[in-house]
């Protein structure tokens, strides 16, 4: 709607959309890692603001969340992090709704504590701040379209996109309801379950893309993509972009466990990013003729 950056990122060929948790395993290293993704060819970056109860995440990203929280990540630090980042791709904040909601609550609480009142301000202050630091949009895994009204409004007000996830189980009316509200891109969940790198690509992806064919918004596929080959197949199958999280977080975790130099980890991240980006482009090259799609 108001922000063109995300749709634009999908305009020229397939978009590579990597994810990392901000501040994993520490603030400084994490800055380097995110910047490495940009150098590796990221078209959009999903930045995780960690929440203590990440119900949609598998073990890999749960690990990232724990490391980031233990290193002191908070919503305010997250906004600083975004400001400190030196990247020129659009950034999407991936987080859970309570953090967005509480940011406003706690601001209001600070203001109203003297008077003893508690005013529910909702997501507006968080979105305002996000716009302020230059974020382009949000993905909120525990916020279905039905509950998204207040956040959607705030996003519209401040010109941010609100990305929704479409699951293999999302059909019919629900799909329509989501597609009415989505902006930026739609996050196509490649399979049921939680985030995490997998060895194979699911047949559910193609079904989902078929269902979404009628809609105009870019379709980025995520959940389980691990290698350039996966990315290639996904894009060849019709996706406008690939979202990759756990495979990248694995590298961060590995580096952390082995106490590696952040630059060395950043290099590997950049290299995997490039592989994934290249894979996506190879896949895109195979897109004509479309008739070959089963």
């Amino acid at each position, binding site marked *: 709607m108001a922000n063109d950056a995300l749709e634009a990122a999908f305009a020229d060929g397939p978009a590579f959309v990597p994810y990392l948790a901000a501040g994993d395993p520490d603030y400084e290293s994490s800055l380097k890692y995110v910047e490495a993704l940009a150098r590796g060819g990221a078209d959009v970056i999903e930045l995780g603001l960690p*929440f*203590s*109860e*990440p*119900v*949609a*995440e*598998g*073990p890999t990203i*749960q690990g990232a969340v*724990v490391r980031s*929280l233990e290193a002191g990540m*908070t*919503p*305010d630090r997250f906004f600083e992090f975004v400001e400190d980042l030196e990247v020129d791709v659009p950034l999407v904040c991936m987080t*859970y*709704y*309570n*953090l967005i*909601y*509480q*940011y406003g*609550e*706690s601001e209001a*609480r600070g203001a109203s504590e003297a008077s003893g009142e*508690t005013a*529910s301000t909702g997501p507006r202050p968080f979105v305002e701040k996000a716009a302020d630091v230059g974020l382009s949009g949000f993905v909120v*895994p*525990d*916020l*279905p379209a*039905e*509950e998204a009204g207040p956040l959607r409004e705030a996003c519209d007000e401040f010109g941010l996109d609100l990305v*929704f*996830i*479409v*699951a*293999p*189980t*999302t*059909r019919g009316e*629900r799909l329509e309801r*989501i597609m009415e509200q989505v902006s930026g891109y739609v996050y196509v*969940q490649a399979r*049921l*379950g*939680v985030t995490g790198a997998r060895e194979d690509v699911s047949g559910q992806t193609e079904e989902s893309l078929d269902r979404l064919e009628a809609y105009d918004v870019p379709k980025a596929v995520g959940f389980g993509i691990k290698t350039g080959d996966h990315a290639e197949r996904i894009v060849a199958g019709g996706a406008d972009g690939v979202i990759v999280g756990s495979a990248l977080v694995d590298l961060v975790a590995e580096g952390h466990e082995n106490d590696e130099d952040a630059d060395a980890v950043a290099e590997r991240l950049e290299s995997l990013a490039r592989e994934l980006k290249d894979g996506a482009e190879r896949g895109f090259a195979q897109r004509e003729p479309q008739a070959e799609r089963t």
Partner: protein
Amino acid sequence: GKFGEYGGQYVPEALMPAITELTDAYERYVLENEDGFMDEFRRRLRDFGGRPTPTQYAERLSERYDCNVYLKREDLVHGGAHKLNNALGQVLLAKYMGKERIVAETGAGQHGTATAMAAAHLDMPCEVYMGKRDINRQRPNVFRMRLNGSTVTPVTAGRGTLKEAISETMRDWATNVEDTHYVIGSVVGPHPFPAMVRDFQSVISEEARGQMREKTGGLPDAVLACAGGGSNTMGAFAEFVDDEDVALYAVEAGGSSLSVDEESGVAPNSASLSTGREGVLHGARTKILQDRDGQIMESHSVSSGLDYAGVGPELAHLVDEGRVTAANVDDDAALTAFHRLSQLEGIIPALESAHAFAYLEENRGELGDSVLVNLSGRGDKDLESVIEETEKRDIDIAPDMTEFAGGF
């Protein structure tokens, strides 16, 4: 699906169709008794679960408090607590929905054991997620679930307690949503769970209301129930909500202190209604123990069954509306009440339920002539905790603990 501002369905998209399907099933089977679902549920509650449970006049407490104290004896339900009311309802509903597998989470193990029993009874495979730390603390309950044929899967994330187990169960459900039903253990989670669990538990107040009329010719002046997630609370209150003269008290675990330690992310209590703030957790907007930023706190109570950072959205709403009074008592008072009830009435209560009795003790004479207390469960499961916690304190009515130092 809302109770004022509370409630809703804050879940990953992958679960939304399941939740929609469940909402539909809830409306048809539970609310409209399609295919005689509710008849079968009530029949199984009676024959398998042992309902109705009595409402007992408590002679010695009545004498002590100079008012008429009645106990709703949910400790007599199969498994030892009200938990089966809900577990049996949901497993049966899953069967009606054609599901082939049950998942559940458990903290202290009470909901897990209830679900395992119901699943065995109804021949459904069942997997129960339980925090690693809770598994180590509640080995007899783990064993009971295994005996009933359930799989118990340890959750190592976080501190390995209930909230991590809930998150992990939601992940399983999100993965296996097509053939699996998630039996949530309290009036929490996304709609329709809070309403559905309340409906399954409301048999408590439905029976109690009739039994009080029969025994006293009227209704009690007050109903007391302990509140963690709030399932026994809502079950005990539901049928009294419209009786405006009946005061309703939800007694939370005050733990060791009502303050919180934001630095360590720990609240030394589980008093979400009394001290929590509105937020979104595990699928619903409700009152939550959280830090300033919205990160969920680790709660604490001497009673592991009350040890949860959230509370049912309907209960939060009823408190905001002024219909339910939120109260709390601390660990010491609950433990003392545990010993008192054991000695005076010959009933060893769950530490959860002991909280309601501690409130009665602290507010004697102020709750009216006729007080109904929901005795939500029996305390056999708590004996080790009681030894450990009594040893730490100076409770003059407690029996000599020397012989039991260090547990059994």
